[in-house]
């Protein structure tokens, strides 16, 4: 999937739709919409014990929000408990957007600017418009499944570095490449090896963000080509005439999770010298577990970036992005845990 950048200053719209049809819905808000040029990003989310209903509701809401724009890519996350339920959620979304458009992963919960959902939910991000080019790739059979850091560290490092390099090699490297999103079945701390492999191809200064699939037994699925995969990694290359601001923050207590979410999102809002398009937040499930009220982190983020910017936030088993902790590798981004990694996209 690779679209060319056709226009630098074409019409650009933004909206986020939150769909929730079950009695267990957590929040509703009117669609946020920001008009812009050339890039269309939308989010939608739905919560329902029936994954097919949630997937359909979220996909329908997203399609409606996209209007005439055909999405180049839909990133899907879900937090159902069993493979059969996940399969139904994937099928529902693929039935609307097609198997070549949808990529994604299982996670522990998600949020849009309208609310947080930490169980039985589907969350979607659509990327479209002629101001952005999207290409994707996946590597399978990395050889990391079943290996542990304690017993197999060297082997893990070798396998995941090789997989990371192979993944990056599969993607085109446009001159206007701005950011890579990585979703992988390689949880923290294994994720450090994968990103090092990617960086052997892209270099240490290229912006890379993303998250690791849910690592609960039997739930570590990636979605690509309409199918479910494990022991793999997928990448999305975003190119175009837009800016990206990155920030990462680590925390392991309720108050610090909220504070770092506020600080990190404020940092990207301050760094971005252009009009914001959407905020992506690759967050740690451990941080979610420390929150007394899961809604508090989103409130803090919105306090920094406002309520009109589409937010696509997800809780993972490890994060890729600019770590704020000691032991930095000398690279802009790394694979770690307990972080929230913000990527704020903006147009000039």
């Amino acid at each position, binding site marked *: 999937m690779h679209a060319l950048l056709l226009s630098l200053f074409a019409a650009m719209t933004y909206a986020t739709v939150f769909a929730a049809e079950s009695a267990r819905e957590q929040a509703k808000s009117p669609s946020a919409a920001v008009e812009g040029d050339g890039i269309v990003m939308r989010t939608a989310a739905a919560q329902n014990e029936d994954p097919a209903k949630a997937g359909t509701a979220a996909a329908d809401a997203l399609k409606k929000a996209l209007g005439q724009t055909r999405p180049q890519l839909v990133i899907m996350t879900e937090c159902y408990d069993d493979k059969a339920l996940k399969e139904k959620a994937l099928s529902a979304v693929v039935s609307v957007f097609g198997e070549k458009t949808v990529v994604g992963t299982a996670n522990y919960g998600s949020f849009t600017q309208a609310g947080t959902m930490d169980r039985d939910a589907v969350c979607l991000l659509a990327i479209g418009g002629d101001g952005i080019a999207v290409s994707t790739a996946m590597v399978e059979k990395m050889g990391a499944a079943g290996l542990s850091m304690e017993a197999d560290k060297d082997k893990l490092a070798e396998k995941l570095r090789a997989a990371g390099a192979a993944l990056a090699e599969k993607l085109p490297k446009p001159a206007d490449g701005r950011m890579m999103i990585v979703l992988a079945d390689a*949880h923290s*701390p294994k994720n450090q090896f994968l990103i090092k492999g990617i960086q052997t191809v892209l270099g240490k200064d290229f912006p890379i963000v993303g998250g690791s699939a849910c690592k609960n037994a039997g739930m570590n699925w990636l979605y690509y080509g309409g199918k479910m995969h494990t022991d793999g990694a997928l990448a999305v290359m975003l190119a175009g005439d837009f800016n990206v601001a990155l920030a990462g923050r680590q925390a392991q207590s309720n108050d610090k999770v909220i504070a770092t979410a506020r600080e990190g999102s404020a940092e990207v809002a301050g760094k971005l010298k252009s009009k914001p398009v959407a905020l992506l937040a690759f967050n740690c499930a451990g941080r979610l577990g420390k929150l007394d009220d899961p809604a508090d982190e989103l409130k803090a983020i919105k306090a920094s970036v406002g309520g009109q910017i589409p937010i696509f936030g997800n809780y993972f088993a490890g994060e890729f992005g600019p770590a704020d902790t000691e*032991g930095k590798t000398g690279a802009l981004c790394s694979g770690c845990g307990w972080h929230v990694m913000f990527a704020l996209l903006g147009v000039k």
Partner: protein
Amino acid sequence: MIGGALLIAVAAWVFGQTPQAPPTKAPDESRAAMVRVENFTVAPSTGPVANVIVHNPAETALTGTLRVNFPKGWTVTPASHELKLSAGQTQSFPFAIKRAADLQANVYPVEVRVESSANVVVRQEVVCASAPYYQPAIDGDPNEWKDSIPITMTTAGRQTVVRLYWNRRDFCMMVEVEEDALAGYNPARPEGPFDAIQFAIAKRSARTGESPADKAQRYEYLVADAGDDDRCFRLITPGTELALARQKRPLEPLRLAEAKVVVKRTGRITRYELAIPFKSMPELRPTPGREFCFSLLVHDTDGAGLRDLGSVMNMWESNRPALAWCRVAGVKWPDRPPFDNKIEFGFCSSIH
């Protein structure tokens, strides 16, 4: 016997002692700081925060530096904390573990140094007290529990191994009790002596009240072998008056029908396996990284007597509240109450 003045002048090495045995034997010893390294609530390799609790039992302020040596090869930040504790103050000091390795034995030696006018060095063995995600079949088969994080305690030469799992539906547990014989519970003779396990689970902020009029903040259960129809009894729930903990009540009306229980014995090992739906414990909200309180007693009524999981958690000796556990007829209770059941545990993702 080391004199009190000498204790103040030189470092007091408290080797092999846990801080639940505070230095109260001599007047000067009471001036020493009491410390406890809390359990890791997720696997060390995933970078948890290790909290070190320091209590100043003296009548004067405690100032100095707190340093902690974790196992070789670990990296931890900060390297130390400055101590400024007023008389009687207790404070928690966090150390973020940046790099660590998990040990199969789940015992991590830690050395705590309180560098002050009364230097104290305490060595403790810390466990990872965490329930990984898994959906086991409740059938008494231990093979599904290999991806749990076992906690082992030895009482009178006999081992007990406690393993926990969680999933969206259930809180699950496998307890392996080494004992000479298993005395089963007989519903027709409920006052008769029997073996059992007793455990309590609560949200992380829960505390044990001191007055019988205080409200319980825990769910507490008793599990016993009863032939082909093993039992799980719910002894107390949050909001109930703690006076109930002193009453020896008929057990059958307390039976929790929705719990799945299997008790099986192989050789010298009795295995208690059970699953309790979270729906019956609405105060608990399991997600990876979330902490809760837990502890467990083993009633080996015809053998080693009471076994207390708190005994391997570096608890302070003074932390034995009288109303922490419900009294049950048919099991033996020692004169000294068990440790409190509000011990830090955590839910975590699957370990691989």
